[in-house]
Protein backbone atom coordinates (compact mmCIF):
# COMPACT_ATOMS: atom_id res chain seq x y z
CA UNK A 1 0.00 0.00 0.00
CA UNK A 2 1.32 3.46 -0.86
CA UNK A 3 1.67 6.17 1.77
CA UNK A 4 -1.87 6.55 3.16
CA UNK A 5 -3.72 9.82 2.56
CA UNK A 6 -5.45 9.55 5.92
CA UNK A 7 -4.08 7.63 8.83
CA UNK A 8 -6.11 7.26 12.01
CA UNK A 9 -4.53 5.71 15.06
CA UNK A 10 -6.12 4.60 18.33
CA UNK A 11 -8.88 7.19 18.13
CA UNK A 12 -11.15 7.39 21.15
CA UNK A 13 -14.27 9.40 21.99
CA UNK A 14 -16.38 8.94 25.08
CA UNK A 15 -19.84 10.36 25.78
CA UNK A 16 -20.43 9.80 29.47
CA UNK A 17 -20.46 6.04 29.92
CA UNK A 18 -20.55 5.27 26.21
CA UNK A 19 -17.40 4.68 24.19
CA UNK A 20 -18.62 6.00 20.86
CA UNK A 21 -15.22 5.59 19.23
CA UNK A 22 -13.19 2.81 20.76
CA UNK A 23 -9.57 2.50 19.68
CA UNK A 24 -10.26 3.05 15.98
CA UNK A 25 -7.35 2.78 13.56
CA UNK A 26 -7.92 3.24 9.86
CA UNK A 27 -5.82 3.91 6.75
CA UNK A 28 -7.16 5.35 3.50
CA UNK A 29 -5.01 5.00 0.40
CA UNK A 30 -5.01 7.90 -2.06
CA UNK A 31 -7.87 7.58 -4.54
CA UNK A 32 -9.50 4.76 -2.60
CA UNK A 33 -13.24 4.54 -2.05
CA UNK A 34 -13.58 3.15 1.41
CA UNK A 35 -16.98 2.31 2.83
CA UNK A 36 -17.78 2.42 6.52
CA UNK A 37 -20.72 0.24 7.46
CA UNK A 38 -22.26 -0.83 10.72
CA UNK A 39 -25.58 -0.93 12.55
CA UNK A 40 -27.29 2.22 13.77
CA UNK A 41 -25.51 3.66 16.77
CA UNK A 42 -22.20 2.03 15.88
CA UNK A 43 -20.49 5.44 15.92
CA UNK A 44 -20.07 6.01 12.18
CA UNK A 45 -21.22 9.65 12.20
CA UNK A 46 -19.24 10.30 15.39
CA UNK A 47 -16.10 9.02 13.69
CA UNK A 48 -16.83 11.14 10.63
CA UNK A 49 -17.28 14.24 12.78
CA UNK A 50 -13.88 13.68 14.36
CA UNK A 51 -12.23 13.32 10.98
CA UNK A 52 -13.99 16.45 9.70
CA UNK A 53 -13.03 18.40 12.81
CA UNK A 54 -16.38 19.33 14.35
CA UNK A 55 -15.82 16.90 17.23
CA UNK A 56 -12.64 16.63 19.28
CA UNK A 57 -11.40 13.14 20.03
CA UNK A 58 -10.40 12.28 23.61
CA UNK A 59 -7.33 10.38 22.48
CA UNK A 60 -5.54 9.14 19.39
CA UNK A 61 -4.12 10.76 16.29
CA UNK A 62 -5.34 11.76 12.84
CA UNK A 63 -2.74 12.32 10.12
CA UNK A 64 -3.69 13.73 6.72
CA UNK A 65 -1.00 13.64 4.03
CA UNK A 66 1.46 12.88 6.78
CA UNK A 67 0.54 15.92 8.82
CA UNK A 68 -1.09 15.71 12.25
CA UNK A 69 -4.46 17.50 11.99
CA UNK A 70 -6.01 16.50 15.31
CA UNK A 71 -5.82 20.07 16.62
CA UNK A 72 -6.92 21.78 13.39
CA UNK A 73 -10.30 23.57 13.39
CA UNK A 74 -12.86 22.29 10.94
CA UNK A 75 -12.63 25.18 8.50
CA UNK A 76 -8.86 24.77 8.37
CA UNK A 77 -9.25 21.07 7.61
CA UNK A 78 -11.53 22.08 4.74
CA UNK A 79 -8.74 24.31 3.47
CA UNK A 80 -6.34 21.39 3.85
CA UNK A 81 -8.61 19.27 1.66
CA UNK A 82 -11.12 17.42 3.85
CA UNK A 83 -14.84 18.02 3.30
CA UNK A 84 -17.95 16.29 4.56
CA UNK A 85 -21.61 15.96 3.72
CA UNK A 86 -24.38 15.39 6.22
CA UNK A 87 -26.73 12.51 6.82
CA UNK A 88 -29.45 15.01 7.71
CA UNK A 89 -29.49 17.53 4.88
CA UNK A 90 -27.84 20.78 5.96
CA UNK A 91 -28.07 23.53 3.36
CA UNK A 92 -28.46 27.29 3.24
CA UNK A 93 -32.21 26.81 2.99
CA UNK A 94 -33.20 30.34 2.03
CA UNK A 95 -30.54 30.74 -0.65
CA UNK A 96 -30.90 29.37 -4.15
CA UNK A 97 -28.83 26.52 -5.57
CA UNK A 98 -26.34 28.81 -7.29
CA UNK A 99 -25.74 30.91 -4.16
CA UNK A 100 -25.34 27.81 -2.01
CA UNK A 101 -22.56 26.56 -4.27
CA UNK A 102 -21.06 30.03 -4.76
CA UNK A 103 -20.60 30.25 -0.99
CA UNK A 104 -18.67 27.02 -0.89
CA UNK A 105 -16.55 28.11 -3.87
CA UNK A 106 -15.94 31.45 -2.14
CA UNK A 107 -14.83 29.70 1.03
CA UNK A 108 -12.27 27.72 -0.94
CA UNK A 109 -10.97 30.39 -3.31
CA UNK A 110 -9.42 33.38 -1.63
CA UNK A 111 -10.40 35.31 1.45
CA UNK A 112 -13.91 35.94 2.72
CA UNK A 113 -12.61 39.15 4.30
CA UNK A 114 -13.33 41.26 1.24
CA UNK A 115 -15.45 44.15 2.42
CA UNK A 116 -15.95 46.43 -0.57
CA UNK A 117 -15.79 44.69 -3.93
CA UNK A 118 -19.20 43.28 -4.93
CA UNK A 119 -19.15 39.50 -5.06
CA UNK A 120 -21.53 39.62 -8.01
CA UNK A 121 -18.63 40.96 -10.10
CA UNK A 122 -16.63 37.77 -9.59
CA UNK A 123 -17.46 35.94 -12.82
CA UNK A 124 -15.09 33.07 -12.06
CA UNK A 125 -16.85 32.25 -8.85
CA UNK A 126 -20.24 31.89 -10.50
CA UNK A 127 -18.80 30.03 -13.49
CA UNK A 128 -17.45 27.44 -11.13
CA UNK A 129 -20.73 27.29 -9.23
CA UNK A 130 -22.51 26.80 -12.55
CA UNK A 131 -20.21 23.93 -13.49
CA UNK A 132 -20.96 22.29 -10.14
CA UNK A 133 -24.69 22.68 -10.72
CA UNK A 134 -24.33 20.66 -13.92
CA UNK A 135 -22.05 18.13 -12.27
CA UNK A 136 -24.57 17.27 -9.55
CA UNK A 137 -27.40 17.09 -12.07
CA UNK A 138 -29.28 20.24 -11.08
CA UNK A 139 -28.93 22.14 -14.37
CA UNK A 140 -31.94 24.40 -14.84
CA UNK A 141 -32.57 24.56 -11.09
CA UNK A 142 -29.93 27.22 -10.30
CA UNK A 143 -32.43 29.86 -9.22
CA UNK A 144 -34.55 27.63 -7.00
CA UNK A 145 -34.30 28.10 -3.24
CA UNK A 146 -32.74 25.12 -1.51
CA UNK A 147 -35.80 24.58 0.67
CA UNK A 148 -37.99 24.37 -2.43
CA UNK A 149 -35.99 21.51 -3.96
CA UNK A 150 -37.20 17.91 -3.86
CA UNK A 151 -35.54 15.61 -1.35
CA UNK A 152 -33.43 13.98 -4.03
CA UNK A 153 -32.27 17.35 -5.34
CA UNK A 154 -31.43 18.47 -1.81
CA UNK A 155 -29.29 15.35 -1.33
CA UNK A 156 -27.47 16.15 -4.57
CA UNK A 157 -26.83 19.73 -3.42
CA UNK A 158 -25.71 18.37 -0.06
CA UNK A 159 -22.93 16.47 -1.80
CA UNK A 160 -22.35 19.38 -4.20
CA UNK A 161 -21.53 21.72 -1.30
CA UNK A 162 -18.81 19.34 -0.18
CA UNK A 163 -17.51 18.92 -3.74
CA UNK A 164 -17.31 22.70 -4.19
CA UNK A 165 -14.50 22.79 -1.67
CA UNK A 166 -12.45 20.57 -4.06
CA UNK A 167 -11.63 18.01 -1.39
CA UNK A 168 -8.90 15.45 -1.68
CA UNK A 169 -10.72 13.50 1.01
CA UNK A 170 -14.50 13.47 0.86
CA UNK A 171 -16.47 12.19 3.84
CA UNK A 172 -19.98 11.23 2.73
CA UNK A 173 -22.52 10.50 5.46
CA UNK A 174 -25.29 8.36 4.00
CA UNK A 175 -25.70 10.25 0.72
CA UNK A 176 -28.44 7.82 -0.42
CA UNK A 177 -30.56 8.34 2.71
CA UNK A 178 -34.21 8.53 1.70
CA UNK A 179 -33.56 8.39 -2.04
CA UNK A 180 -35.72 6.48 -4.50
CA UNK A 181 -34.15 3.88 -6.83
CA UNK A 182 -33.65 6.32 -9.70
CA UNK A 183 -32.10 9.01 -7.52
CA UNK A 184 -29.90 6.39 -5.87
CA UNK A 185 -28.61 5.33 -9.27
CA UNK A 186 -27.80 8.95 -10.08
CA UNK A 187 -25.98 9.39 -6.76
CA UNK A 188 -23.98 6.22 -7.37
CA UNK A 189 -23.01 7.53 -10.80
CA UNK A 190 -21.95 10.85 -9.25
CA UNK A 191 -19.77 9.10 -6.65
CA UNK A 192 -18.34 6.79 -9.29
CA UNK A 193 -17.20 9.80 -11.29
CA UNK A 194 -15.19 10.95 -8.25
CA UNK A 195 -12.92 7.94 -8.61
CA UNK A 196 -10.41 9.92 -10.64
CA UNK A 197 -8.48 11.49 -7.81
CA UNK A 198 -10.79 12.02 -4.86
CA UNK A 199 -10.46 9.72 -1.90
CA UNK A 200 -13.86 8.94 -0.41
CA UNK A 201 -14.94 7.62 2.95
CA UNK A 202 -18.54 6.55 2.44
CA UNK A 203 -20.90 5.85 5.32
CA UNK A 204 -23.90 4.08 3.86
CA UNK A 205 -26.65 1.62 4.72
CA UNK A 206 -27.50 0.81 1.11
CA UNK A 207 -25.52 -2.44 0.70
CA UNK A 208 -26.01 -2.55 -3.06
CA UNK A 209 -24.36 0.83 -3.34
CA UNK A 210 -21.62 -0.07 -0.88
CA UNK A 211 -20.62 -3.28 -2.62
CA UNK A 212 -20.80 -1.62 -5.99
CA UNK A 213 -18.66 1.37 -5.10
CA UNK A 214 -16.22 0.38 -2.39
CA UNK A 215 -12.70 -0.89 -2.95
CA UNK A 216 -12.46 -1.63 0.74
CA UNK A 217 -14.95 -1.82 3.56
CA UNK A 218 -14.60 -1.34 7.30
CA UNK A 219 -17.24 -2.56 9.68
CA UNK A 220 -17.87 -0.54 12.81
CA UNK A 221 -19.72 -2.10 15.73
CA UNK A 222 -20.07 -0.46 19.15
CA UNK A 223 -17.38 2.06 18.25
CA UNK A 224 -14.81 -0.58 17.29
CA UNK A 225 -13.55 -1.62 13.89
CA UNK A 226 -14.69 -5.22 13.73
CA UNK A 227 -13.20 -5.96 10.33
CA UNK A 228 -11.57 -4.16 7.46
CA UNK A 229 -10.90 -5.52 3.99
CA UNK A 230 -12.04 -6.09 0.45
CA UNK A 231 -15.78 -6.50 -0.23
CA UNK A 232 -15.24 -10.22 -0.76
CA UNK A 233 -13.40 -10.60 2.52
CA UNK A 234 -16.12 -8.67 4.39
CA UNK A 235 -18.84 -10.70 2.70
CA UNK A 236 -17.20 -13.89 3.88
CA UNK A 237 -16.29 -12.72 7.39
CA UNK A 238 -18.11 -14.82 9.96
CA UNK A 239 -17.68 -12.25 12.72
CA UNK A 240 -19.29 -9.58 10.59
CA UNK A 241 -22.18 -11.92 9.86
CA UNK A 242 -22.84 -12.50 13.52
CA UNK A 243 -22.35 -8.97 14.81
CA UNK A 244 -23.76 -6.88 12.07
CA UNK A 245 -26.21 -8.76 9.92
CA UNK A 246 -27.13 -11.79 11.96
CA UNK A 247 -29.75 -13.97 10.34
CA UNK A 248 -30.40 -11.60 7.46
CA UNK A 249 -26.88 -11.85 6.15
CA UNK A 250 -27.59 -13.51 2.85
CA UNK A 251 -30.49 -11.23 2.05
CA UNK A 252 -28.63 -8.16 3.21
CA UNK A 253 -25.55 -8.73 1.16
CA UNK A 254 -27.15 -9.92 -2.02
CA UNK A 255 -30.15 -7.67 -2.49
CA UNK A 256 -31.41 -4.23 -1.59
CA UNK A 257 -31.77 -3.98 2.16
CA UNK A 258 -34.49 -1.42 2.27
Amino acid at each position, binding site marked *: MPEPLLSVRALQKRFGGVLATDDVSLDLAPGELHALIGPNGAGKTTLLAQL*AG*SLKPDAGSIAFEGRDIAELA*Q*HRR*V*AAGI*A*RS*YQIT*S*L*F*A*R*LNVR*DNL*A*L*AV*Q*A*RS*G*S*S*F*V*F*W*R*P*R*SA*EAGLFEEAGALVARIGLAGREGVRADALSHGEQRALEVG*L*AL*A*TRPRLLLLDEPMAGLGPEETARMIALIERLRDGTTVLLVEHDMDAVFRLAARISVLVNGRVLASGSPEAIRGNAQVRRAYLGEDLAAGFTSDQR
Partner: protein
Amino acid sequence: MLKPKPWVGTALVAAFAIALPLALRAGGQVFYISFASQVLIYALAATSLNLVLGYGGMVSFGHAAFVGAGAYVASLLLHAGVESAWIAWPAAMAVAAAIALATGAISLRTRGVYFIMITLAFAQMLFYLANSIKAWGGDEGLTLARRPSLGFGIDLGDELAFYYVVLALLAAALYALHRVVGARFGHAVVAIRENETRAEAIGLPVFRARLACFVIGGAAGGLAGALLACHDKYVNPNVLHWTQSGTLMIMVILGGVGRLWGGVLGAVALLGLERLLADFRIGWLAALFPNYAQHTSLAVGVVLLAAVLFAPRGLAGWRGSHNA
Protein backbone atom coordinates in the same frame (compact mmCIF):
# COMPACT_ATOMS: atom_id res chain seq x y z
CA MET B 1 -45.77 46.12 -14.71
CA LEU B 2 -43.51 49.16 -14.84
CA LYS B 3 -41.02 48.98 -12.01
CA PRO B 4 -39.14 52.10 -10.93
CA LYS B 5 -35.35 51.93 -10.89
CA PRO B 6 -34.02 51.02 -7.44
CA TRP B 7 -32.11 54.26 -7.06
CA VAL B 8 -35.23 56.39 -7.56
CA GLY B 9 -36.46 55.70 -4.05
CA THR B 10 -33.04 56.45 -2.58
CA ALA B 11 -32.85 59.72 -4.52
CA LEU B 12 -36.28 60.77 -3.27
CA VAL B 13 -35.35 60.00 0.33
CA ALA B 14 -32.07 61.92 -0.07
CA ALA B 15 -33.87 64.91 -1.58
CA PHE B 16 -36.35 64.91 1.27
CA ALA B 17 -33.59 64.65 3.88
CA ILE B 18 -31.70 67.54 2.29
CA ALA B 19 -34.76 69.77 1.94
CA LEU B 20 -36.26 69.02 5.35
CA PRO B 21 -34.14 71.33 7.57
CA LEU B 22 -34.41 74.16 5.04
CA ALA B 23 -38.17 73.88 5.19
CA LEU B 24 -38.09 73.71 8.99
CA ARG B 25 -35.91 76.80 9.18
CA ALA B 26 -38.13 78.68 6.76
CA GLY B 27 -41.08 77.72 8.95
CA GLY B 28 -39.29 78.91 12.08
CA GLN B 29 -39.14 75.40 13.58
CA VAL B 30 -35.42 75.34 14.35
CA PHE B 31 -35.96 73.02 17.32
CA TYR B 32 -37.09 70.31 14.95
CA ILE B 33 -33.83 70.53 13.00
CA SER B 34 -32.08 69.47 16.18
CA PHE B 35 -34.65 66.73 16.64
CA ALA B 36 -34.11 65.55 13.07
CA SER B 37 -30.34 65.35 13.76
CA GLN B 38 -31.08 63.21 16.79
CA VAL B 39 -33.22 60.89 14.66
CA LEU B 40 -30.40 60.53 12.12
CA ILE B 41 -27.89 59.73 14.88
CA TYR B 42 -30.18 57.02 16.25
CA ALA B 43 -30.65 55.81 12.68
CA LEU B 44 -26.87 55.38 12.47
CA ALA B 45 -26.76 53.58 15.82
CA ALA B 46 -29.62 51.28 14.84
CA THR B 47 -28.03 50.62 11.44
CA SER B 48 -24.80 49.59 13.16
CA LEU B 49 -26.77 47.19 15.36
CA ASN B 50 -28.61 45.90 12.30
CA LEU B 51 -25.31 44.78 10.78
CA VAL B 52 -24.60 42.72 13.88
CA LEU B 53 -28.13 41.56 14.69
CA GLY B 54 -29.82 41.54 11.30
CA TYR B 55 -27.10 40.41 8.93
CA GLY B 56 -24.83 38.67 11.41
CA GLY B 57 -27.65 37.04 13.36
CA MET B 58 -25.93 37.91 16.64
CA VAL B 59 -28.60 39.01 19.10
CA SER B 60 -26.46 41.51 20.96
CA PHE B 61 -28.26 43.07 23.90
CA GLY B 62 -25.32 45.29 24.75
CA HIS B 63 -24.98 47.66 21.83
CA ALA B 64 -25.28 50.62 24.20
CA ALA B 65 -21.75 49.75 25.36
CA PHE B 66 -20.33 50.87 22.01
CA VAL B 67 -22.61 53.88 21.62
CA GLY B 68 -21.84 54.91 25.19
CA ALA B 69 -18.11 54.35 24.82
CA GLY B 70 -18.11 56.59 21.76
CA ALA B 71 -20.09 59.25 23.59
CA TYR B 72 -17.71 59.22 26.57
CA VAL B 73 -14.55 59.21 24.47
CA ALA B 74 -15.72 62.20 22.43
CA SER B 75 -16.82 64.06 25.57
CA LEU B 76 -13.67 63.32 27.58
CA LEU B 77 -11.44 64.38 24.70
CA LEU B 78 -13.32 67.65 24.40
CA HIS B 79 -12.99 68.14 28.14
CA ALA B 80 -9.28 67.51 27.85
CA GLY B 81 -9.02 70.30 25.31
CA VAL B 82 -9.05 68.24 22.11
CA GLU B 83 -11.29 70.37 19.94
CA SER B 84 -11.00 68.61 16.60
CA ALA B 85 -13.77 66.27 15.52
CA TRP B 86 -11.21 64.67 13.21
CA ILE B 87 -9.52 63.30 16.32
CA ALA B 88 -12.51 62.84 18.62
CA TRP B 89 -14.74 60.88 16.23
CA PRO B 90 -12.14 58.41 14.93
CA ALA B 91 -10.94 57.96 18.53
CA ALA B 92 -14.52 57.20 19.61
CA MET B 93 -14.75 54.59 16.85
CA ALA B 94 -11.39 53.08 17.73
CA VAL B 95 -12.19 52.71 21.42
CA ALA B 96 -15.64 51.28 20.66
CA ALA B 97 -14.03 48.84 18.20
CA ALA B 98 -11.46 47.80 20.80
CA ILE B 99 -14.20 47.16 23.36
CA ALA B 100 -16.15 45.20 20.76
CA LEU B 101 -13.05 43.16 19.97
CA ALA B 102 -12.41 42.31 23.61
CA THR B 103 -16.02 41.59 24.60
CA GLY B 104 -16.79 39.87 21.28
CA ALA B 105 -13.81 37.55 21.57
CA ILE B 106 -15.33 36.26 24.80
CA SER B 107 -19.08 36.46 24.18
CA LEU B 108 -18.95 34.99 20.65
CA ARG B 109 -17.90 31.70 22.17
CA THR B 110 -21.44 31.42 23.53
CA ARG B 111 -24.72 31.01 21.69
CA GLY B 112 -28.38 31.83 22.09
CA VAL B 113 -29.58 33.13 25.42
CA TYR B 114 -26.05 33.02 26.84
CA PHE B 115 -24.86 35.41 24.16
CA ILE B 116 -27.73 37.79 24.87
CA MET B 117 -26.94 37.71 28.59
CA ILE B 118 -23.19 38.10 28.30
CA THR B 119 -23.43 41.08 25.94
CA LEU B 120 -25.94 42.63 28.33
CA ALA B 121 -23.59 41.99 31.25
CA PHE B 122 -20.63 43.66 29.55
CA ALA B 123 -22.71 46.74 28.75
CA GLN B 124 -24.02 46.95 32.30
CA MET B 125 -20.47 46.70 33.62
CA LEU B 126 -19.58 49.80 31.61
CA PHE B 127 -22.73 51.49 32.85
CA TYR B 128 -21.72 50.99 36.48
CA LEU B 129 -18.13 51.92 35.70
CA ALA B 130 -19.25 55.26 34.22
CA ASN B 131 -21.47 55.82 37.23
CA SER B 132 -18.62 55.37 39.66
CA ILE B 133 -15.76 57.29 38.05
CA LYS B 134 -15.68 60.85 39.40
CA ALA B 135 -13.45 62.13 36.59
CA TRP B 136 -16.15 61.10 34.13
CA GLY B 137 -18.75 63.06 36.05
CA GLY B 138 -20.17 60.04 37.87
CA ASP B 139 -23.93 59.73 37.64
CA GLU B 140 -24.28 63.40 36.77
CA GLY B 141 -22.31 63.03 33.60
CA LEU B 142 -20.37 65.64 31.70
CA THR B 143 -21.57 68.86 30.15
CA LEU B 144 -19.75 70.08 27.07
CA ALA B 145 -19.13 73.79 26.60
CA ARG B 146 -19.44 73.45 22.82
CA ARG B 147 -19.38 71.00 19.96
CA PRO B 148 -16.02 70.03 18.47
CA SER B 149 -14.70 71.81 15.40
CA LEU B 150 -14.58 70.28 11.98
CA GLY B 151 -12.63 72.90 10.03
CA PHE B 152 -13.45 73.89 6.45
CA GLY B 153 -15.47 76.79 7.84
CA ILE B 154 -18.16 74.44 9.13
CA ASP B 155 -19.56 75.47 12.50
CA LEU B 156 -21.02 72.37 14.16
CA GLY B 157 -22.65 74.66 16.70
CA ASP B 158 -25.03 75.69 13.95
CA GLU B 159 -27.93 73.23 13.95
CA LEU B 160 -28.26 73.27 10.18
CA ALA B 161 -24.56 72.54 9.62
CA PHE B 162 -24.59 69.84 12.27
CA TYR B 163 -27.62 68.22 10.64
CA TYR B 164 -25.92 68.02 7.25
CA VAL B 165 -22.73 66.60 8.72
CA VAL B 166 -24.73 63.89 10.50
CA LEU B 167 -26.72 63.24 7.32
CA ALA B 168 -23.50 62.86 5.30
CA LEU B 169 -22.10 60.40 7.86
CA LEU B 170 -25.33 58.38 7.89
CA ALA B 171 -25.37 58.29 4.08
CA ALA B 172 -21.74 57.13 4.08
CA ALA B 173 -22.57 54.44 6.63
CA LEU B 174 -25.54 53.20 4.60
CA TYR B 175 -23.44 53.09 1.45
CA ALA B 176 -20.72 51.22 3.33
CA LEU B 177 -23.30 48.75 4.67
CA HIS B 178 -24.61 48.28 1.13
CA ARG B 179 -21.08 47.52 -0.09
CA VAL B 180 -20.19 45.25 2.81
CA VAL B 181 -23.30 43.05 2.54
CA GLY B 182 -22.79 42.75 -1.21
CA ALA B 183 -19.14 41.78 -0.83
CA ARG B 184 -17.74 38.37 0.03
CA PHE B 185 -17.71 39.29 3.72
CA GLY B 186 -21.44 40.06 3.81
CA HIS B 187 -22.30 36.83 2.05
CA ALA B 188 -20.14 34.90 4.50
CA VAL B 189 -21.75 36.56 7.51
CA VAL B 190 -25.28 35.89 6.22
CA ALA B 191 -24.34 32.28 5.45
CA ILE B 192 -23.16 31.86 9.04
CA ARG B 193 -26.46 33.32 10.26
CA GLU B 194 -28.41 30.94 8.05
CA ASN B 195 -26.53 27.74 8.90
CA GLU B 196 -23.50 27.99 11.15
CA THR B 197 -22.69 24.28 11.08
CA ARG B 198 -22.66 24.12 7.31
CA ALA B 199 -20.78 27.40 7.01
CA GLU B 200 -17.97 25.89 9.07
CA ALA B 201 -18.17 22.67 7.04
CA ILE B 202 -17.62 24.46 3.73
CA GLY B 203 -14.60 26.17 5.22
CA LEU B 204 -15.83 29.62 6.21
CA PRO B 205 -13.92 31.08 9.19
CA VAL B 206 -17.04 31.33 11.35
CA PHE B 207 -15.57 32.80 14.53
CA ARG B 208 -13.35 35.39 12.85
CA ALA B 209 -16.07 36.52 10.45
CA ARG B 210 -18.52 36.95 13.30
CA LEU B 211 -15.97 38.82 15.37
CA ALA B 212 -15.12 41.14 12.47
CA CYS B 213 -18.83 41.86 11.98
CA PHE B 214 -19.24 42.56 15.70
CA VAL B 215 -16.25 44.93 15.68
CA ILE B 216 -17.42 46.86 12.60
CA GLY B 217 -20.86 47.24 14.18
CA GLY B 218 -19.24 48.38 17.41
CA ALA B 219 -17.10 50.98 15.66
CA ALA B 220 -20.08 52.43 13.80
CA GLY B 221 -22.02 52.45 17.08
CA GLY B 222 -19.12 54.38 18.63
CA LEU B 223 -19.40 57.03 15.92
CA ALA B 224 -23.13 57.34 16.61
CA GLY B 225 -22.33 57.76 20.30
CA ALA B 226 -19.79 60.49 19.61
CA LEU B 227 -22.34 62.33 17.46
CA LEU B 228 -24.97 61.90 20.16
CA ALA B 229 -22.73 63.50 22.81
CA CYS B 230 -21.89 66.35 20.43
CA HIS B 231 -25.56 66.80 19.62
CA ASP B 232 -26.66 66.93 23.25
CA LYS B 233 -23.47 68.68 24.43
CA TYR B 234 -23.93 66.36 27.35
CA VAL B 235 -23.30 62.76 28.27
CA ASN B 236 -24.32 60.70 31.28
CA PRO B 237 -24.28 56.99 32.13
CA ASN B 238 -27.81 56.48 30.80
CA VAL B 239 -26.33 56.31 27.33
CA LEU B 240 -24.82 53.00 28.49
CA HIS B 241 -27.95 51.68 30.19
CA TRP B 242 -29.54 48.46 28.98
CA THR B 243 -32.72 50.33 28.06
CA GLN B 244 -30.62 52.12 25.43
CA SER B 245 -29.66 48.73 23.98
CA GLY B 246 -33.31 47.77 24.10
CA THR B 247 -34.40 50.92 22.28
CA LEU B 248 -31.91 50.25 19.48
CA MET B 249 -33.11 46.68 19.26
CA ILE B 250 -36.72 47.84 19.00
CA MET B 251 -35.73 50.20 16.18
CA VAL B 252 -34.09 47.36 14.26
CA ILE B 253 -37.03 45.00 14.74
CA LEU B 254 -39.54 47.71 13.89
CA GLY B 255 -37.60 48.88 10.85
CA GLY B 256 -36.53 45.54 9.43
CA VAL B 257 -34.02 42.98 10.65
CA GLY B 258 -31.30 42.46 8.06
CA ARG B 259 -32.64 45.15 5.75
CA LEU B 260 -30.48 48.00 4.50
CA TRP B 261 -32.98 50.67 5.54
CA GLY B 262 -34.19 48.83 8.64
CA GLY B 263 -32.27 50.92 11.17
CA VAL B 264 -33.28 54.21 9.55
CA LEU B 265 -36.97 53.33 9.27
CA GLY B 266 -37.03 52.04 12.83
CA ALA B 267 -35.42 55.17 14.26
CA VAL B 268 -37.70 57.48 12.28
CA ALA B 269 -40.81 55.50 13.26
CA LEU B 270 -39.99 55.13 16.94
CA LEU B 271 -38.64 58.61 17.68
CA GLY B 272 -41.23 60.17 15.35
CA LEU B 273 -44.03 58.45 17.18
CA GLU B 274 -42.71 59.51 20.58
CA ARG B 275 -42.37 63.10 19.37
CA LEU B 276 -45.82 63.07 17.82
CA LEU B 277 -47.44 61.87 21.01
CA ALA B 278 -45.47 64.33 23.13
CA ASP B 279 -45.87 67.49 21.03
CA PHE B 280 -49.26 67.25 19.42
CA ARG B 281 -52.59 66.85 21.06
CA ILE B 282 -54.45 64.17 19.19
CA GLY B 283 -58.14 64.87 19.75
CA TRP B 284 -59.68 61.43 19.48
CA LEU B 285 -56.88 59.85 21.48
CA ALA B 286 -57.26 62.45 24.23
CA ALA B 287 -60.99 61.81 24.34
CA LEU B 288 -60.31 58.14 24.99
CA PHE B 289 -57.23 58.49 27.21
CA PRO B 290 -56.95 61.96 28.74
CA ASN B 291 -53.39 61.41 30.01
CA TYR B 292 -52.05 59.53 27.02
CA ALA B 293 -49.07 61.89 26.58
CA GLN B 294 -47.62 60.61 29.85
CA HIS B 295 -47.71 57.05 28.61
CA THR B 296 -45.93 57.27 25.28
CA SER B 297 -44.01 54.10 25.93
CA LEU B 298 -47.31 52.23 26.18
CA ALA B 299 -48.23 53.50 22.72
CA VAL B 300 -44.81 52.49 21.44
CA GLY B 301 -45.40 49.05 22.88
CA VAL B 302 -48.70 48.75 21.04
CA VAL B 303 -47.08 49.80 17.78
CA LEU B 304 -44.23 47.33 18.28
CA LEU B 305 -46.69 44.55 19.00
CA ALA B 306 -48.63 45.41 15.86
CA ALA B 307 -45.42 45.51 13.83
CA VAL B 308 -44.27 42.10 15.02
CA LEU B 309 -47.71 40.61 14.39
CA PHE B 310 -48.57 42.23 11.05
CA ALA B 311 -45.21 43.16 9.55
CA PRO B 312 -42.80 40.56 10.95
CA ARG B 313 -40.18 41.60 8.43
CA GLY B 314 -40.35 45.19 9.64
CA LEU B 315 -41.32 48.37 7.85
CA ALA B 316 -38.63 47.77 5.23
CA GLY B 317 -40.02 44.31 4.54
CA TRP B 318 -43.57 45.55 4.18
CA ARG B 319 -42.95 47.18 0.85
CA GLY B 320 -40.59 44.43 -0.21
CA SER B 321 -43.20 41.74 0.33
CA HIS B 322 -45.43 43.33 -2.30
CA ASN B 323 -43.03 43.60 -5.18
CA ALA B 324 -40.76 40.71 -4.26
